[in-house]
């Protein structure tokens, strides 16, 4: 019964999602999913593209390891309109447990015009969480 209780608590703690603002760290393990949100202002003719997010390592270039994509559509507009974009990246065994991975996003067909925003050293890939020595140490009337 004691082991079952510990297992349940572990499962609850591991399921907590942490929202991180650019620059803040997030810890992930294999099986987790990272949702990457971005925003962009657009004006011009109606346009469809792919929002692309990647975890990897910034060196001379960006060494991509895991990616996520979603289709985006911008209606025609003579004025700038703000859009929220989102893509999920599934953490697989393709990425090693390590700290300080980097993250970047782009619009696949308009990379030059829109740019490639990047946040560095924000993803830590950790091994499956482990707990030990979790026990009741005392109980008393207060």
């Amino acid at each position, binding site marked *: 019964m004691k082991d079952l209780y510990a297992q349940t608590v572990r499962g609850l703690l591991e399921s907590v*999602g*942490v*929202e*991180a*603002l*650019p620059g803040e760290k*997030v810890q*992930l393990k294999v099986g*987790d*999913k*990272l*949702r*990457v*949100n*971005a*925003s*962009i*202002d*657009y*004006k*011009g*003719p109606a*346009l469809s593209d792919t929002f692309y997010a990647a975890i990897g390592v910034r060196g001379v270039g960006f060494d991509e390891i895991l990616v996520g994509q979603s289709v985006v559509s911008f209606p*025609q507009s*003579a*004025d*700038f309109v*703000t859009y*929220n974009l989102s893509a*999920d990246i599934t953490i697989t065994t393709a990425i090693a447990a390590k700290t300080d991975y980097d*993250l970047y*996003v782009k*619009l696949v067909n*308009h990379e030059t*015009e*829109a*740019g490639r*925003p*990047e*946040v560095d050293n*924000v*993803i830590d890939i950790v091994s499956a969480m482990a707990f030990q020595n979790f026990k009741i140490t005392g109980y008393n009337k207060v």
Partner: protein
Amino acid sequence: MERNQNPPSSGPRGTRGLAPLAVGTYADIIAVYGPANAAYGDQVSISVVVMNLASYPIYIGVGGHYDTTGMNYSPEYAAVDAGGSYVFTASFSMPNKSITLDVWSWYWTGAEWVVDDHEAISIPLRTLAPEFRRFGVTQYNKV
């Protein structure tokens, strides 16, 4: 008579009567000003300059349309001195296509409005190039 915007909705009073004559005889459209092109949604301003070719003052009005959309010019009509000219204006939001704008001039006979002159201009649609700004990661979280 060609399809056109209706003449001014009412006529002025006490005007010297004129017999209907050949097109462009009294209210001569001497210029129509508009943009060289316009983007979808742009506010397009049109100015029509009409000259009174009669030897006495007459009332002149302007009407017209682009494609099937009627246009109301301001003022609805005006008293124009002999040999003088008057500018009538209108504006509209550019549709999502190139358009041809037709304008007609009218003069008042004392009893009715008579269509006189006609001009047409083309306003091509200016295609917008895609523009992006403020692209950035806002948040990332485990889901």
